[in-house]
C-alpha cells in the first residue's frame, strides 16, 4: 500500500475517515460549508450543535445516505465516488444507528440482525443466528430475540438497532442522535451499550448527541457544528472547561443550563 511511497505511513494508515472541504447543498440551501475532519482508528468523536447545523447531514455523507457535492471523503483508504462498488465497499465498513431506530417492523429482533449477514454476506441461517444471539446478549436482551419491534420498548429497539449495525462487523459506527427519541428512563441503557462498545472494543465511533455526560466519559474529541461549519474541535476537557469560541460557549451554556 502506501507504506513504501509515503514518507509518514503512520498518520495515513491511522486516519480511518478523512473529510476534506466537504460541501453540500439542499437545493439553494448551503448546509455543509467546507467540512474538514480526520478521525483516527479507535477514536470516539462526539459531534454536537444546534438542530439544522448540518451535523447529521455530515455523518450521513460518510456512508453516502447523502451525497456531498464538493470536496472528498475517504473511508479506510477508499475514496467516495459515484461508483456503486465503492459505495458498497464503504458501507460494508460502517454501521449506522438512527434517531428513530428504523428497525424493520415485519421482522423479529433476531431477523433484523441476521438479515444483512445472510443476504449480503451470504452466511447460512444457523451461522447468522449464532452471531445474532451473541450480539443480543451483548446488548443485554437475548430474551427478546423473537419479538417484533412493536413489542419492544424504545430502549430495547435502539439496542437491537445497535446489534443490527454490529452484525456486519463494521470498523466504524455512526450514531445519529441515538437517544433523542427515547423516554428519559431508557436513555442510560442505550448509552451504557455505546459506552462499553467504545471502551471494550476500541470501535471507531462518531456520535451526534447532546448527552454531555457520555461525551465527557468516552469522547476523545468533541466537534461543535454551527450553520454548516465546524466552529471548534477539542478534547472534552478543552470544550467544557475552556472553549475558545464565543459560539461554543453560548451553545454549551444553553444546553448545560
Amino acid at each position, binding site marked *: 500500500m502506501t507504506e513504501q511511497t509515503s514518507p509518514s505511513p503512520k498518520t495515513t494508515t491511522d486516519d480511518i475517515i478523512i473529510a476534506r472541504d466537504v460541501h453540500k447543498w439542499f437545493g439553494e440551501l448551503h448546509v455543509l460549508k467546507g467540512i474538514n475532519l480526520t478521525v483516527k482508528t479507535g477514536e470516539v468523536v462526539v459531534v454536537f450543535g444546534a438542530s439544522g447545523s448540518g451535523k447529521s447531514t455530515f455523518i450521513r455523507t460518510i456512508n453516502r*445516505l447523502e451525497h456531498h457535492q464538493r470536496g472528498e471523503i475517504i473511508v479506510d483508504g477508499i475514496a467516495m465516488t459515484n461508483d456503486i462498488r465503492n459505495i*458498497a465497499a464503504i*458501507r460494508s465498513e*460502517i454501521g449506522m444507528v438512527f434517531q428513530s431506530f428504523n428497525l424493520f417492523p415485519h421482522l423479529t429482533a433476531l431477523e433484523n440482525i441476521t438479515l444483512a449477514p445472510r*443476504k*449480503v454476506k451470504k452466511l447460512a441461517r444457523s451461522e447468522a443466528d449464532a452471531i445474532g444471539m451473541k450480539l443480543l446478549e451483548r446488548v443485554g436482551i437475548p430474551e427478546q430475540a423473537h419479538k*417484533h419491534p412493536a*413489542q419492544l420498548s424504545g430502549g430495547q429497539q435502539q439496542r437491537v438497532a445497535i446489534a443490527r449495525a454490529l452484525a456486519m462487523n463494521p470498523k466504524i459506527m455512526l450514531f445519529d442522535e441515538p437517544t433523542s427519541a427515547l423516554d428519559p428512563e431508557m436513555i442510560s441503557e442505550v448509552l451504557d451499550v455505546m459506552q462499553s462498545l467504545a471502551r471494550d472494543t476500541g470501535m471507531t465511533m462518531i456520535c451526534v448527541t447532546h448527552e454531555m455526560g457520555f461525551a465527557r466519559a468516552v469522547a476523545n474529541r468533541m466537534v461543535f457544528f454551527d450553520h454548516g461549519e465546524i466552529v471548534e474541535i477539542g478534547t472534552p476537557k478543552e470544550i467544557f472547561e475552556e472553549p475558545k469560541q464565543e459560539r461554543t460557549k453560548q451553545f454549551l451554556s444553553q444546553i448545560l443550563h
Partner: protein
Amino acid sequence: MTAESIRPPRTVIGPIAWLRENLFSGPISSIITIVLGALLVWVAIQVGQWALTEARWNVVSNNLRLFLIGQYPADQAWRLWAAMAVLSVLAGASAGVHGLASRMLAVTLSAIQLLLAVLMLFSPIGITAVAAYAFNAAIVWVAMVAGFRGLVPRRPLGWAWIVSLPLTFYLVSGFAGTPLESISSNVWGGLLLTVLLAVVGIVLSFPLGVILALGRRSELPVLRILSTGYIELIRGVPLVTILFMADIILPLFLPGEWRLDRIARAMGGITLFSAAYVAENVRGGLQAIPSGQIEAAHALGLGGVQTNRYIVLPQALRAVIPANVGLFISLLKDTTLVTIIGLLELLGISRAVLAQSDSFGASLEVYVFIAAVFFVLSYAMSQASYRLERALGVGTR
C-alpha cells in the same frame, strides 16, 4: 404502587336491559323499532313463502351441470374431479406445513367442494360426482394432517405446485393424440369458466401489477414513463372495451395462422386490465414505507434489489392486502362481462338455461342462485383476507 388495584366495573348487561337500552330507549326509538321490526318480519315471510313454496328450484337443480361446467362433456367430468383432487391435496399439504393464510385457502377449498357435493345430491348429475367432491373435500384434511405431522417435505411441495399448473391444465383441456382427448375451450363454461378466469386473472395480474408499480417509481425514465403510460391508459378504458379489443381487434393484427384461444384472449384482457389497478394499489403501499427503512437497509449494505425484496415489498404488499382483495373480489364479479364476447361463464350460461322452454318464468330462481354463488365466493375471499391480515399482523406491527 400502594393503592390496591380493583377490577373494572361490570359492563355486561342482561337481554332485557339490552333491549331497553338499544331498541326502546325512548318513544321515537320504540316506534322506529316496532315499524322496522314489522317490516322485516313481513319481508322475511314473503321471501320465505316464495322460496319454500312457489320457487321452482328444480330449474336450478336440473341444470346444475350446466351451471357448474357448461357444455363440458359429462363423460369427461372426472378429469375436473381429478384436477380438483390435485389442488386439494396440495392446498391441504401446504396448509399443514405453512399454516396461517394457506390454511384458510385449504379450508375454503374443502368447504366449497363439500357444498358442491351437497348441491349435487339434489340434481340428476349422479352419485359418482357427489362422491368425488366429498372425497376431495376430505383429502384436503388428510393432506393437512400429513403436512402438520411433518410428513410432507417443504421443498418438493413448492415444486409440486409448479408442476401442478401444467398438470391440471392438461387434465382440464387435454391434448389431441394423447390419452386425454382434447376438449375445446369453446365448451368450457359456467362456474368452471368463472373460477378459471378469476384465478388466472388474479395470479397473473398480481406480479404484473407489482412490477408496474416498481417501474412507475423507478429512477430510469424510460421504465417510469412506460409504466405510468400503461397504467394511465388502461385505467382510462372500460373493461368491456378491453375485452372487445382482445376478442375482435387483436386477431386482426395478428398473422392469420396465429389463432389465440378465445378464453386465453379474455384472460389476457382481464389480466392486463387488473394489473393497472393492482399497480396503483401497490404504489400506495410503496409510498407509505418511511424513507428511514430504505436508509437503514442501505446502511447495512443491502443493494437496491435486495432492499425492495426484503424490506420494501414485504411491508408494502402487506399494507395493501385489504385494497387488493377488494380489487380481486370485483375482478371475480367482473368476469361476468365476458358474456358480451360470447363466453358462457356463470351468468352467460344462466341466460342459456333461461332460454329453454321448461325454465320459462324461473329467472328469479336462477338469478338468486347465481347471486348466492357469487356471494359465497366473494365472502370466502374477504374472510381469507381478514385471516391473512391478522396472521401477518397488519396494523399492529
